């Protein structure tokens, strides 16, 4: 069993490394076809001003258009492999430090949105699936379809206008009150600032999870084993508690962990609208400002997070699904 798990973990780790290499090459290739020379761009210039000649030389050999892209990538990759992700041109700090701060800001928001959309989406999907065709099902399905076709940033603006501008119950942006010293910021302050972006992300995230959970639930409620449970006289409550929830849990878990990438993707736009200084906003800034080292760092971190999510889902599968838990060793 232990050996099996170690083997699984080792294989996953190897896959992650390969994935990160692929992602970094793809990002790099995209950036290198961009016509802007990072060092010539405004931001790049400003950053260069405060650097020593030696640093500039290193940067030039790294990112300058004179160096062939393949060589630039190898330069970057050599350092990255040693854990040095380089220096952000915009923030003038090591990329890792910038990412740490931004990620800390985003993590709260992302986790909140992930949990809310997961729990709510699951509950609504299960409900709609059990009572397929009922008014509740129609309402849930209608809601999900409307939300699925609503752009996240538009929803963000709407919420911002309603709660931030008209009702003035929630702050319109940033992650902490303006001008407050860092040590005075309470958890409540942070939570208040995260509410609107988290709600926006949750509302959009719910629809996907709910629709997929509903489909699974309908399949289960029509499955042979639920039919047979009915034929044995089990009540709807028994069937839902004893069979349906058990069986929908596995696909729901996969959905939930797969939704991490969607939440992160959504956060890029939503953080922009709410000026929330998180990873998503940093990604936009890095992209528009040609801060290649930062952009590379952010892509790699998010890819790793998404991968980790899938890895955890697979581990949980092994714990929850008896066919893997018990069958894995025999078959």
């Amino acid at each position: 069993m232990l050996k099996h798990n170690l083997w699984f973990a080792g294989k996953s780790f190897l896959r992650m490394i390969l994935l990160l290499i692929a992602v970094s090459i793809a990002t790099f290739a995209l950036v290198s076809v961009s016509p802007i020379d990072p060092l010539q761009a405004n931001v790049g210039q400003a950053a260069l001003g405060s650097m020593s000649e030696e640093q500039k030389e290193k940067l030039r050999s790294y990112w300058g258009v004179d160096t062939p892209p393949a060589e630039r990538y190898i330069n970057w990759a050599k350092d990255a492999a040693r854990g040095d992700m380089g220096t952000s041109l915009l923030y003038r700090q090591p990329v890792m430090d910038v990412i740490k701060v931004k990620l800390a800001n985003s993590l709260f928001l992302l986790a909140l949105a992930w949990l809310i959309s997961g729990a709510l989406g699951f509950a609504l999907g299960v409900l709609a699936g059990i009572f397929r065709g009922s008014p509740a099902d129609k309402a849930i399905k209608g809601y999900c379809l409307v939300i699925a076709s609503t752009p996240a940033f538009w929803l963000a603006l709407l919420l911002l206008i309603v709660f931030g501008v008209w009702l003035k119950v929630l702050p319109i942006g940033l992650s902490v009150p303006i001008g407050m010293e860092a040590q005075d910021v309470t958890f409540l302050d942070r939570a208040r600032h995260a509410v609107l972006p988290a709600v926006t992300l949750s509302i959009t995230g719910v629809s996907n999870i709910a629709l997929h959970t509903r489909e699974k639930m309908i399949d289960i409620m029509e499955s042979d084993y639920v039919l047979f449970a009915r034929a044995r006289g089990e009540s709807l409550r028994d069937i839902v508690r004893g069979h349906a929830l058990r069986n929908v849990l596995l696909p729901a878990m996969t959905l939930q962990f797969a939704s991490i990438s969607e939440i992160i993707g959504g956060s890029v736009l939503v953080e922009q609208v709410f000026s929330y200084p998180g990873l998503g906003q940093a990604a936009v800034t890095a992209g528009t400002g040609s801060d290649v080292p930062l952009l590379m760092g952010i892509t790699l971190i998010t890819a790793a997070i998404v991968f980790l999510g899938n890895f955890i889902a697979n581990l949980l599968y092994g714990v929850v699904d008896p066919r893997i838990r018990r069958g894995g060793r025999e078959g």
Partner: protein
Amino acid sequence: MSCTNKRHILEIDELSVSFLQYENSRSSRQIELPVISKLSVSVHEGEIVAVVGSSGSGKSLLAHAILGMLPYNARTGGKIYFNGELLTPEKIREYRGGRIAFVPQSTTYLDPLMKVGEQVRGGRNSSGGKDSGRGGRPSGGRRNDPERRKKQRALFARYGLSEETDAKYPFECSGGMTRRVLLTSALMGNPELIIADEPTPGMDLALAKKSMEDFRAFADEGKGVLLITHDIELALEVADRIAVFYAGTTIEEAPVSDFASEQLLRHPYTRALWRAMPQNGFQPLPGTQPYVKDMPAGCPFGPRCENYSRECAGEIPMQRVGCGTVRCVKYHGEPLAVHEHHA
């Protein structure tokens, strides 16, 4: 034979089942696909009635219709009586798992994520008699009830399922084991009618025999068994009467004794089945049963029948003959009055 003065446990009167389907993948218009029409069959007290018929003739659908297990898009017509009482959807929900037990056909009828022992214990507890649905204890509690545990263990032991089997998941059971699990789940309660859909394939001969003996003993207590099978020989061995299905309808119901010779059988299809049996010459009937979409007018057996004539293209009424029925224009019995036993 004095079958007419025996009480009916189950009586099915001109059952029809159809499925609503979209005409094709692009169309939004729904068409009704009739798969069972004018199907009549009955089970008296103390009787095992075998339903035989080739694949796709509607045997499983009949069982599902009785138990209210048809899918979302199914529509039904006709009447089903249980102990003389009309089985409405509410009554079905009240009786299934209690007074009416079911053995499903395929091993996919077990929840893949629940241990088999637990699943068998989870049904309705009918021994008290008044545990009817909503008021009953949740099955979570019943699954751990010591009484039910004892009964389940005894039944498993009776069918050679060891104590470890209780805690196995369906994927850990062989086909034969799963069959036995499905069978025991029907015997957990205290039913008056068992509907068993192909219960024996995959079981070894001794166990198949034992399950048939159990059905016999069960029926001899004045109860009823509807045994669905495609195995005529098995049916002839254990059943009292045979109902022959063809393309979604009953074409003949006859006591087992009528199968002693071809001359005693009435319907050309039943005779063809008889001739196809190994001991009677093994002559297969050419052709296949028509698919619902190209069902002929009049007698469904028409295209394969050597006695076909013009009158076979019209309505073919069901006729009573002694203890059985037949649906063929060439046979002249008494007209059938289905409700005579209820009056």
